[in-house]
């Protein structure tokens, strides 16, 4: 029995990649008859999804977020509204307590930019949610790449790229001090007979003073099950990778192929080791989606039908608006190699690998942003495909949807059972917090994580 079980693969982790909006990654599909992305204002929409995910033993739901409009496309922002492309959008963090209440095991990861809130308040909100969920919260740490978002928060425009990560460094530093250092483990006594609620000698100010923030403390919230939430990050740049190597426990990658995934994961694991961490301290989640069918032919037919709904102009506007280079006036059949705008080759150069036999065009870029990271086939074929991602170094999948709730209901009902039978997906939840579920070594960050240095560090400074 032990031999048989040791031959089984490790399960991959699964998160549902969603956003509190109509058009997240695959644009245009909100128009499909059964699609309910447009119901994102309703709590019931998310409650139902969360229950479906827990039924399917998903590790987590992962909420993306932006706090502004994408940069102009074809000269303005019209396309984003017409496509519902991440606008209107609602705050993801406030969904967490309701989702926590209706589930028992599902992790709840949400994106929050260092731009939108002071770290003192943010740390408090996260701790509140970690208590409410009994330790199931993850924070996807992001800077900001949208000029409009910067201008929503009083800045003139984007912060320089390297400066954004200096900002993020200080932001997490303040948060770590509050989460890990301000309250000692046994500070909360709740001793009714003695009338002592907490031990003052074990609650500490942090007295942080840095270039951007000055924060006295103490943290207002007592230690939550995980203290620091599970730390997600998604930066692909040099500065982003370094930040991930230092801080992240889970990295969301969008590698265009298996070779790139192998390269990306190895690179960040190596960097983590250089920062005194272990490569195994980081789990990598590849973003992709699946189109299952009972036969391969049926799956392909479904994928072809899905492709007809995709709004390729919106797909192109998304990438265009994210990098701040307006492709909107270009002919879609322009070969990518002929685009002269500064910096453009580094962001769309990957397309040439995917279209080796002819000059790749903007139309190819639009098409592949919607269809490259997907697996079409029977559940068995999907399992084979996922096993290949795993062999390339990926630990989990951030599962993109073509529609909500359909994509996830279909996955849970038809794909998950096959994955579970093959040991590629957990069939039961482990007990404990999200961090413990993922790493199996307790609720808290390991001692070699940079946040751990603040444990016991503020003892002399009383509140």
């Amino acid at each position, binding site marked *: 029995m032990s031999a048989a079980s040791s031959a089984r693969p490790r399960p991959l982790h699964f998160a549902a990649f969603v956003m509190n909006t109509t058009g997240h990654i695959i644009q245009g599909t909100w128009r499909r008859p059964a699609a309910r992305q447009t119901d994102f204002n*309703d709590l019931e929409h998310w409650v139902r999804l969360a229950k479906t995910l827990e039924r399917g033993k998903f590790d987590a739901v992962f909420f993306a977020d932006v706090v502004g409009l994408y940069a102009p496309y074809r000269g303005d922002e019209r396309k984003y509204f017409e496509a519902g492309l991440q606008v209107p959008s609602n705050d993801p963090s406030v969904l967490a*307590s309701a989702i926590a209440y209706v589930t028992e095991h599902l992790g709840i990861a949400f994106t929050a930019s260092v731009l939108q809130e002071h770290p003192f308040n943010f740390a408090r909100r996260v701790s509140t949610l970690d208590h*409410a969920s009994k330790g199931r919260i993850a924070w996807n740490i992001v800077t900001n790449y949208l*000029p409009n978002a910067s201008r929503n928060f009083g800045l003139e425009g984007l912060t320089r790229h390297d400066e954004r990560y200096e900002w993020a460094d200080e932001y997490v530093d303040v948060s770590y001090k509050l989460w890990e250092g301000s309250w000692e483990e046994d500070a909360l006594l709740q001793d009714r007979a003695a009338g002592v609620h907490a031990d003052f000698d074990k609650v500490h100010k942090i007295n942080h003073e840095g270039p951007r923030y000055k924060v006295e403390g103490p943290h207002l919230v007592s230690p939550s099950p995980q203290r620091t939430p599970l730390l997600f990050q998604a930066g692909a740049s040099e500065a982003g990778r370094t930040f991930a190597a230092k801080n992240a426990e889970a990295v969301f990658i969008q590698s265009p192929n298996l070779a790139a995934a192998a390269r990306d994961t190895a690179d960040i694991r190596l960097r983590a080791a250089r920062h005194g961490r272990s490569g195994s301290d980081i789990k990598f989640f590849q973003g992709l989606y699946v189109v299952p069918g009972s036969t391969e032919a049926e799956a392909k037919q479904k994928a072809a039908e899905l492709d007809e709904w995709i709004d390729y102009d919106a797909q192109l506007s998304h990438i265009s608006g994210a990098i701040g280079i307006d492709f909107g006036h270009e002919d879609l059949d322009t070969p990518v190699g002929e685009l002269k705008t500064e910096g453009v080759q580094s962001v769309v150069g990957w397309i040439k690998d995917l279209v080796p036999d002819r000059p790749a065009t903007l139309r190819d870029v639009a098409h592949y942003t919607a269809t490259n990271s997907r697996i079409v086939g029977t559940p068995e074929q999907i399992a084979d495909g996922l096993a290949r991602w795993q062999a390339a170094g990926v630990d989990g999948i951030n599962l993109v949807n073509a529609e909500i709730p359909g994509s996830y209901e279909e996955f849970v009902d038809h794909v998950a059972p096959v994955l579970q039978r093959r040991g590629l997906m957990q069939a039961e939840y482990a007990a404990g917090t999200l961090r413990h579920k993922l790493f199996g070594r307790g609720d808290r960050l390991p001692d070699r994580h940079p946040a751990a240095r603040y444990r016991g560090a503020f003892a002399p400074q009383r509140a």
Partner: protein
Amino acid sequence: MTAKKRLILNLFEMNCVSHITHGLWRLPGNNRERFNDIEYWTELARLLEYGGFDAVFIADVIGTYDVFRGSAETSVREGLQIPNNDPSLVVPAMAAVTRHLGFGITFSTTYEPPFAWARRLSTLDHLTKGRVGWNIVTSYLPNAARNFGLDGELDHGKRYEIADEYLDVLYKLWEGSWDDDAIIADREHNVFADPAKIRPIFHEGTYFKVEGPHLPSPSRQRTPVLFSATASGDGTKFAGKHTEVVFTGGPTTGFLQRTIAGIRQAAVEAGRRPDDVKFITQAGVIVGKTESEALAKRAAYERLSSRDGYLAHAGLTFDPTGLPPETRLVDVADEFSVGRRRAFDPAQTVGEFLSGFGDITRQPLFACGTPDVVADAIEGWLDEVGIDGINLTQYHSYDTARDFIELVVPVLRARGRLRTEYDPDESLRDRIFGAGDRLPDRHYAARYRGGAFLPGRLSPSSPDPGSSNDFKGRDPR
């Protein structure tokens, strides 16, 4: 004869152990220690909705009470609002288990950028289908200021100046940025929202610069019901212009009445009607089936009441507990040292000054007795004092609410002071004012509707997108 005034009934809460009745968390069966658990809040929400409460009103602070005895030691020991958790984040779970209960959420305008808060409230208003209110505060704790990078508290007048601009930004986002019919969701023609009906706000003021547009689409109420807690001069002008439900208080009913009259006057001066503003106060109710049962409860509460908790809460800059009771107050203190809620009376001795602290009965609106006695008192508050509703003080969670629901609610219903059931489909604003989901046209916020007073348009109406797109024109790149 006009109809009887209906009571606005809220439960006064805070996401912490010891909110305003210090020491009582130790009462047998008190659930306050469970505030970290989401089930504490969902059970409470169900109970309040079962009992017909209008809303749960959640106070908040973002610092510690560390003035008394020179540190937060007393507060930490007492559980006096520390640890405390964010109030807004427990609301969605409560919303998931209720259909009618409203939510008053406290948030300070002093330290956080308005854009994210506007979005969070709109999200909550969407999720609750229009059941959200915002209790606007400007923060008064020095430690809160130091948690957000300042060296100390901003001057009171300046905090209200910031709050006034903060509200202006939020009104532009909530009322002006999106037209009601902006969402088309036209599947056939592939148009989700009509860009011509959505606009940035380009706010540039003394304290804030915000481009917009608002990210959420219009929620049911757009602007949540605006609460504010005040009795000060700057607060009066602010409340007259902005507030729909004033949470006020004071040492005597006479003080209360002057506050109410002052704010109604300020409302009229701001172009509103006197009855556009409702007034709620903190009220203590201890009720029993018999008088002796009520008195026994009161005695049990008094036994555990902690004077230290009240002293720390008041923020005294001196410690009267170490002084002989006959000491003249004027010899050891001045008007700045007696805390933020108390008038300085130079004729008092320290003993007299101290005697009020920890006395749970010592508030202008307090009633203890049988259901009829309590109901008589509440009717007096409504008709004679002139308030419109109460934030019910909790001595024991959930017994205070349970007792009120079991014993007082039926009497108030019989007397026409509470409705017997919820209107199945009304927003919080409609429930309080009976005039629809949105702010009335005469409220300052209404000026931004349809994009009036806003400089920008998102999308051009002319055929040339390059020439008339203000949004693009303002892009610094």
